[in-house]
């Protein structure tokens, strides 16, 4: 039994808790996964309008129902999916859309970097699954447990991420099913769903002078560049210019 406990601890890591048998450790992991899943269910209310809006924007941009749902299944990153939809609507090419996705999702890197040392005890398969499910809210809900190395912290984090993934895919599907009968999206102003959704993501980020500078520079550059640069490249140029401007302002303080 003692050997088994040691093996289990080695397999699952220090978070499994010393002295627990393999079965107890497994139960603990499952309970932590369930807790993470359930703790995140209230956030489905936050995901729902976002998923519905994404589905409407996707259909308005000319994507098929299957393509819109597949994007949520395969990408699982809301903000970058909205960005991609805007570029699809403007006839963007695959390379520029993939680059825009990369740029929007670069913000995951600091999250993942901060978690990496806390998850080294897990196999690379488990780390890959955790990586796929990583999102801003699941990170926010789990980071404290992970940093305290609480038992089952990684399982909680996974449960939270899977919970958000499930709701994201379900809400996208619901939006596709119920939003299909819209006759002329532009006459209803549905082309504004995307910029308005982004507005709700942007406004809470305006917490500092540097953030304002980043936003004003990027917005101004986007207007100017859209007159000269083709398709979505103007957005990438503006985002690069704005974020460097914000970083410079922060560095000067």
């Amino acid at each position, binding site marked *: 039994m003692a050997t088994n406990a040691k093996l289990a601890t080695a397999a699952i890591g220090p978070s499994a808790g010393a002295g627990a048998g393999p079965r107890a450790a497994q139960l603990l992991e499952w309970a932590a996964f369930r807790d993470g899943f359930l703790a995140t269910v209230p956030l489905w209310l936050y995901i729902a309008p976002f998923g519905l809006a994404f589905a409407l924007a996707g259909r308005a941009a000319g994507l098929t129902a299957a393509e819109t749902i597949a994007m949520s299944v395969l990408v699982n990153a809301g903000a970058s999916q909205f960005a991609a939809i*805007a570029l699809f609507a403007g006839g963007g090419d695959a390379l520029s859309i993939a680059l825009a996705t990369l740029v929007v999702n670069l913000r995951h890197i600091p999250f993942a970097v901060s978690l990496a040392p806390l998850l080294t005890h897990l196999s690379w398969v488990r780390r890959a699954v955790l990586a796929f499910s990583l999102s801003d809210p699941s990170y926010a809900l789990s980071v404290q447990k992970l940093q305290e190395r609480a038992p089952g912290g990684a399982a909680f984090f996974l449960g939270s991420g899977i919970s958000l993934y499930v709701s994201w895919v379900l809400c996208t599907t619901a939006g596709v099913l119920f939003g299909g009968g819209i006759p002329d999206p532009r006459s209803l102003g549905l082309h504004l769903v995307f*910029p308005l959704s982004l507005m709700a993501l942007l406004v809470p980020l305006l917490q500092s002078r540097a953030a304002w500078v980043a936003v004003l520079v990027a*917005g101004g550059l986007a207007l100017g560049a859209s007159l000269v640069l083709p398709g979505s490249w103007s957005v990438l140029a503006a985002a690069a210019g704005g974020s460097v401007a914000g970083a410079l302002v922060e560095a000067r303080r």
Partner: protein
Amino acid sequence: MSTWLTILAMGAVTFATRALPLLAPWRQPPPFLERVLRYMPPAIFAALIAPPILMPSGGWVEAGLTLWAGLVGAVVAWRTRSMALTVVVGLGTYGLLRALVGS
């Protein structure tokens, strides 16, 4: 077909941003790069919002219906922090103005 390829590429790129730091040994990025990464999300959001709100017809900046809808949406986003309300009130403003102006 190219749409599906684009979606697959998006999935791969997104997974890479989440997985590479977890799977590879990773040093802390230099401080300036870290700052640039921090301002990336607001910058790209602004770059995506500005043209459809301020240049709805693609030509030049105009103070039209979309600008008013965007301003109202920004106020709602600021006061409520709710995406649903921001979208609904912003769209409502656009619809109302459109009906009033008749364009």
